[in-house]
């Protein structure tokens, strides 16, 4: 009993300290900024960072609401019913499922796990996971707002996302048939598993099917999703804005204009930043003048398919060997698509 009490007091003191120090910072922020004036990039960084947040926040929130609606009102059986038996038609239809079920990138892993439990084939589940965060109305909408003056990029994001998802799905199916990929699921691990994953689970079929009854649950989920995705988005925006001002312009330009290296850099960037696909278009926008179009498309399709956050969530459901294989496949497919754009006349048309 005593330990819990002590921990609580420590919690309170910690919270109090944090709040007091922030209060002090608030009081003196103008002086601090004044002292930092010689570092001209700081003001520019703050303006850039704040504007990206303001711009993307609505799309992030809408994505959370939509995802929460799907989690609360639609069961996985409904999703599974749409999947055809034939392999090729199967991957094609699955890639388009996001248009009906626009789930947020973070909610796809728990759904994939539940789909597998229901007996959906692995290659279909993976196609779902990589396609839905790209081919969905919210993402297409935010991309069209970020790149309204470059419609070709919007088209390329959707087209390459579609082609990429189908390719990845078929590759996984091929590897499965060659027994290279098998027994990929982890056993149901009750101790491990992030709170993130658990909070997305909802009790299936419990309670009345009343729409109003489930409304609090809807906003509860939306709030949780916002917490999850918001964290990574804010960090991503912070890093992207910082990098933009810290890396010397000529280096950024020489790397960004290189038709091959730019692809790799953007791929790594997309993986590391873990930004939700509803909002990453606004981050990609920032690099539109320095990077090749192919690399921008790589950023826009690789990010939704796999990133650090996704990988962590996958680790709670799949074995490490499979995750690595999947990561490599996704990276290669995206870079190949990006190369096709960069090394053909398409790249100059954007």
């Amino acid at each position, binding site marked *: 009993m005593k330990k819990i009490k002590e921990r609580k007091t420590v919690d309170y003191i910690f919270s109090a300290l944090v709040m007091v120090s922030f209060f002090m910072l608030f009081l003196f922020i*103008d002086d601090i900024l004044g002292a930092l004036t010689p570092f001209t990039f700081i003001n520019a*960084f703050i303006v850039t960072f*704040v504007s990206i947040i303001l*711009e993307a926040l*609505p*799309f992030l929130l809408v994505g959370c*609401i939509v995802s929460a609606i799907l989690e609360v009102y639609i069961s996985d059986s409904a999703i599974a019913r749409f999947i055809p038996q034939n392999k090729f038609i199967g991957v094609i239809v699955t890639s388009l499922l996001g248009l009906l079920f626009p789930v947020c990138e973070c909610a796809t892993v728990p759904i994939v796990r539940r789909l597998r439990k229901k007996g959906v084939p692995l290659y279909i589940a993976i196609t779902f996971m990589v396609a839905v965060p790209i081919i969905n109305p919210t993402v297409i909408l935010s991309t069209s707002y970020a790149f309204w003056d470059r419609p070709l990029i919007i088209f390329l994001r959707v087209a390459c996302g579609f082609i990429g998802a189908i390719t990845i799905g078929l590759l996984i199916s091929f590897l499965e048939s060659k027994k290279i990929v098998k027994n990929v699921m982890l056993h149901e691990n009750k101790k491990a598993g992030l709170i993130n994953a658990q909070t997305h689970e909802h009790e299936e079929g419990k309670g009345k099917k009343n729409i109003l009854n489930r409304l609090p649950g809807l906003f509860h989920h939306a709030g949780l999703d916002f*917490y999850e995705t918001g964290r990574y988005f804010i960090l991503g925006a*912070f890093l992207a804005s910082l990098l933009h001002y810290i890396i010397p312009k000529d280096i950024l330009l020489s790397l960004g204009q290189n038709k091959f290296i730019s692809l790799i850099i953007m791929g790594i960037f997309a993986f590391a930043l873990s930004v939700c696909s509803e909002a990453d278009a606004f981050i990609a926008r920032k690099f539109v003048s320095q990077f090749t179009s192919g690399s921008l498309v790589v950023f826009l399709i690789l990010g939704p398919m796999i990133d650090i956050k996704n990988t962590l969530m996958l680790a709670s459901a799949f074995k490490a060997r499979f995750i690595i294989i999947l990561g490599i496949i996704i990276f290669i497919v995206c870079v190949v698509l990006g190369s096709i754009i960069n090394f053909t006349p398409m790249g100059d048309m954007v």
Partner: protein
Amino acid sequence: MKKISIPDIQWFLILLCYACSILFLILSNKLYDFLHPRMFIFAIIAVIILFIISGYQCLKIFKSDIKNRSFQKGFLIFIIPLFLGFAARNIDTSSALAQAQGNGDGQIVELDAVSKKYTDVDIKELLKRPVIKVDDKEYYKIQFILYENAELFSGKEIDIIGFLYRDDDFTQPDIFLLARYIMWCCAADAVLSGYVCDYPDTDKLHMDTWVRVSGTLGISSYVDNNGKNVTIPKIIVKKITAIDPPAKKYIFAR
């Protein structure tokens, strides 16, 4: 006695702060400093959703739920934008972005070929005007016309506002850029643009101040990265007056 969950209160306050901050920016017209007007409706949607979610969060405060203990560290991340947004309230966003730039004379202005939008009719109409008075709505279109038809407009009178810009990469002494920032979605993607101005007393001018310039159009040229000779318009300044920073500092590209 019902337990009150502190992390829930903190999350509620954070959500509420976000909602109120954005609402404040909208109502005080400061949103123009960060976002393109076509995105404003989305900012309003964000405010509404945030208020709804914080409302539900408020209700949850009074239901003890030990699972929520994990929230604490993540909150610091959410406080960062609120904090920096608060810090940004007094920054002149235009000049902040300008000071972090670094470009050579005249080569700063790169017109985005993708967004070219004007016709021969527009050129004739512009030529007919006795004085080309540039307002925000036509800024982008006029700039395109003048930059691509610089010789045609040589000698015409022009009246235009902007902020003074000059950086260490400028090699000639008596020129400055009468600058504006052009925004497509948000301040983060804003691009520096404007007109090169000839003015003998440039060294007496205070950079980053907003001015109204009236003068005559002339031509200037430079050699670009591909070795090609590029002709651009310049303004031979007759009169320059200080003005208050306009409410809408950015040119909003359409």
